[in-house]
């Protein structure tokens, strides 16, 4: 049996009473990929996962594992193992029995079950905890038991619903690379859900950014970060400047846009809508002159010191724009309410249709 599985979702629609949780989702997750669903709370991540796991069934659309349609296959026959957002540990079973559950169902011999459970316990660093009950574990330990319970059955598709949300920062980083390592080692396809963009970037081969029941963009972390296709994706991927503006001139795919009294020429934009936002990452704004760049003159509102970088918040008319630098020198000459000039390469300015 080949383990790697490829997952295809075609136009999945799911409603709960009045709420449309998923409005026609298409996804293609490739063999052995670690694919992440990223989006804010309530956007439909868990619903998507549950539908893939066979715990809910879509109102419309189809699901394929490799070439086999599984849309209405029951969860117990699907082999897509889900780690629930709330862990769903059985309180009447010990850690050992929780982890061994799936293996017992597969009717593995006793000593093999024992071996595998030990292996899984070691993987999640919970050796010695096998006789405890879930209530006797901390939130993070419970979460790790849930992960072990899923991994131990070596599923062809592993679905993780915010599996690290309850861990402290250090453990989270550790587990993150553990998951990555396990995934490579076992060669399983993993669908990972999180609302933490940094986590998504760090762990994923590819990311799908979701917003109220739709997929806004699918791509590698770099693509999503550098070339967001929509205002939502841009604003969701970390702190960024999103400035409402208007297209005032077009020439082929080059446009001139205007916000406040600033005119920015020679930007690339192809959509028809004239209402736009310009998106500029703070770290792409320079505080010292660069050739051929767009120049914005305003005044300093705030200077914020974050340790390894410094943020300068400038006011340009009524618009606040944040620049980020790692150089103390850049800010030495600045003072609150004093003048400041931001320099931005045209390539670093994204123009996207206004959306929100």
């Amino acid at each position, binding site marked *: 049996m080949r383990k790697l599985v490829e997952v295809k979702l075609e136009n999945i629609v799911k409603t709960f009473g009045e709420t449309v949780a998923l409005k026609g989702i298409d996804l293609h997750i490739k063999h052995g990929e670690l694919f992440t669903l990223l989006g804010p709370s309530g956007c439909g991540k868990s619903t998507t996962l549950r539908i893939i796991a066979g715990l809910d069934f879509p109102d419309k659309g189809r699901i394929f594992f490799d070439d086999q349609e599984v849309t209405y296959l029951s969860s117990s026959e699907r082999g897509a193992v889900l780690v*629930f957002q709330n862990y*769903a540990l059985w309180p009447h079973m010990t850690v050992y029995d929780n982890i061994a559950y799936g293996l017992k169902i597969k009717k593995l011999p006793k000593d093999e079950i024992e071996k595998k459970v030990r292996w899984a316990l070691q993987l999640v660093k919970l050796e010695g905890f096998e006789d405890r009950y879930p209530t006797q574990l901390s939130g993070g330990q419970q979460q790790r038991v849930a992960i072990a319970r899923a991994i131990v*059955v070596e599923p062809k598709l592993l679905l993780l619903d915010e599996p690290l949300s309850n861990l402290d920062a250090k453990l989270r980083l550790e587990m993150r690379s553990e998951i990555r390592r396990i995934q490579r080692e076992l060669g399983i396809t993993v669908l990972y859900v999180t609302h933490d963009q940094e986590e998504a970037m760090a762990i994923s081969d590819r990311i799908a950014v979701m917003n109220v029941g739709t997929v806004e963009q699918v791509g590698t972390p770099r693509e999503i970060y550098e070339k967001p296709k929509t205002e939502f994706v841009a604003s969701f991927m970390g702190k960024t400047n999103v400035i409402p503006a208007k297209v005032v001139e077009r020439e082929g795919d080059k446009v001139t846009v205007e916000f406040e009294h600033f005119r920015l020429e020679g930007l690339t934009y192809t959509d028809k809508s004239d209402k736009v936002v310009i998106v500029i990452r703070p770290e792409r704004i320079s505080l010292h002159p660069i050739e051929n760049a767009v120049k914005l003159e305003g005044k300093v509102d705030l200077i914020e010191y974050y340790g390894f970088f410094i943020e300068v918040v400038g006011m340009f008319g009524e618009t606040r724009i944040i620049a980020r630098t790692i150089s103390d020198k850049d800010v030495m000459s600045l003072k609150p309410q004093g003048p400041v000039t931001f320099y931005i390469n045209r390539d670093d300015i994204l123009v996207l249709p206004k959306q929100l």
Partner: protein
Amino acid sequence: MKVSKWSEKLFGTPLFEPLVSFSYLFPLLYIVVFLIIPVLAMLAIAFSHEGHFSLYWFKSILTSSYYVQFPPQGDFAIKTVTATGETVYLIRGIDFGVVINSLVVAALVTLLASLMGTIFAFIMARYEFKGKNFFRIALFIPLLVTPFVNAYVIKKMFLDTGLINYIFYELLHILPFRIKIDGLAGVVLAQAMTYYPIVYLNAYASFINIDPTLEEQAENLGSKGFHLFRTVTFPLALPGIAAGATLVFIFSLEDLAAPIVFQGDPLAKKLMSYQIFSKFLYGLGERSPEIAALSIIMLTLAVLAFLGIRKYVSLRQYAMLSKGGRWKPRVSKPKPWQAAIIYVVLLPLLLLTIFPQIGVVLLAFSKQWSVTVMPQGFTTEYVKQMLFNPDVRRYIINSLMYSAAAVVLIVLLSVTSSYATSRFKGVLTPVLESLVIIPIAVPGIVVAMGYFYFFSQVFPNTPLDPTNIFSFNPAFVLILAYSIRRLPFSARSVYAGLQQVHVSLEEASMNLGASRWKTVTGILLPLISLNVFGGAMLSFVYSMSETSVGITLGSLNMQYAPITAFMKDIMMSAAGSAQLAAALGVLLITVQILSIVLVNIITKQRYAFIGLT
């Protein structure tokens, strides 16, 4: 105020406050004096022989073949052939001796009730089917208490000419012969039919409270069908089911109504509850310490079951671990074979178990019920008698007054005890917590015997002395007994109410300068008034139908007897009429339905019956 070490230790507050001390001490002393000491008085009698401490009575009980008999005697079923050539199997059960019979009956009743209760609870919690609402309502009907008449109707159902044979032998031909169920077997059936909804309610609550993701996870890992039920669903519901089952065990052990109704068969008399009852009632004057010893044995069994289950349940109180999971109840449409079971097996079963209550109503309006399937002839004579006969009216008024007086005490006891145990953590807190709940585990007949010995010794030759044949007035004793026996119903409700009110509300009031008294009466009581009301109503209803003490101590002076003592009299005596008793049963049912509907409307909460934890 000065700091008091004692207060801190006992009551959990360093400042000695009269109201707090009262809240602890009043219920504590009340239960000690009116429950613990009477039981101890009985203990003293049971353990003494010819003036010495001795195990004589226990030895004499446990070595007599009347009480313990191995191997058992008698045939489980006896085949007879009637004049018309029909075969009838008479099923009565076998005789292990009184003590073991009680255990066997209670165990069988518990088993049957648990099976039925769990199955009904499971389909109600997990399936969506036509007629579910009918099931929901019908499942409450067996809980309507009609002492004696209920068991009487069940006895009629299982006669060789009764409803069961009519349906399964005459109409459907499922039975190849007629059956007649009597004796211990009859008692088992009657109790199982009456008590299974207790398991149902507890089990239903358990199934409903299982975090759905726990089952989904199991399914997701490949489990399904019965495996899923066996490994996840059932173990998670088990604490609730076991709590309900234990209640049934205790109720069966102490039940008097079924053995009294089935006493036409001598085998039905060979139960501890009945033995204590009859030896007490017909022993007159010189009541042997054997009764006390038997009561102690019964009490021990009930308390052991009770403590066992409390321990077990507290160990496995699965606070569901769920965090942030969405609560999507797991209800589905039954598969065809499951639907078939629901409609072909469970529905008829349900209908049979609510028939006793229907039968009571029919009986109240009928001329006679001898060997027919249903009662015959319509008349309102008995209902009129109940309403207008001054003697009958007197019993009703007695019961109303005693119950009302008991409720006043119960409210006071439950408010004080719940206030103390929910707000302060002293050494006395767990003691009081247990004392308030322990009456559930003390069989009514044991309370009655305890009171008998206690009051005859402590208040000899007063109207409180049950042996004072001509001037004993049971009013006081009955009110005490009701207030103790029904206290847990109300205390639970009030305690739940207090848990809903955050302490900060009281702290704010005291912080603004209000006294403790003012805070409790002005802030707390209004906030929990609905819970107090709900608990009071339940206690009232179940005081009205209290049986064990009513038909023993209560019947020593019929002038002051409660309604249940009168019902027992007319059911047992040859001259009495089951119809009048049924009419009184209808009255009780009406009071119960009205109260529960009223409580549900006013408090907007579902009050039904007591659980154990």
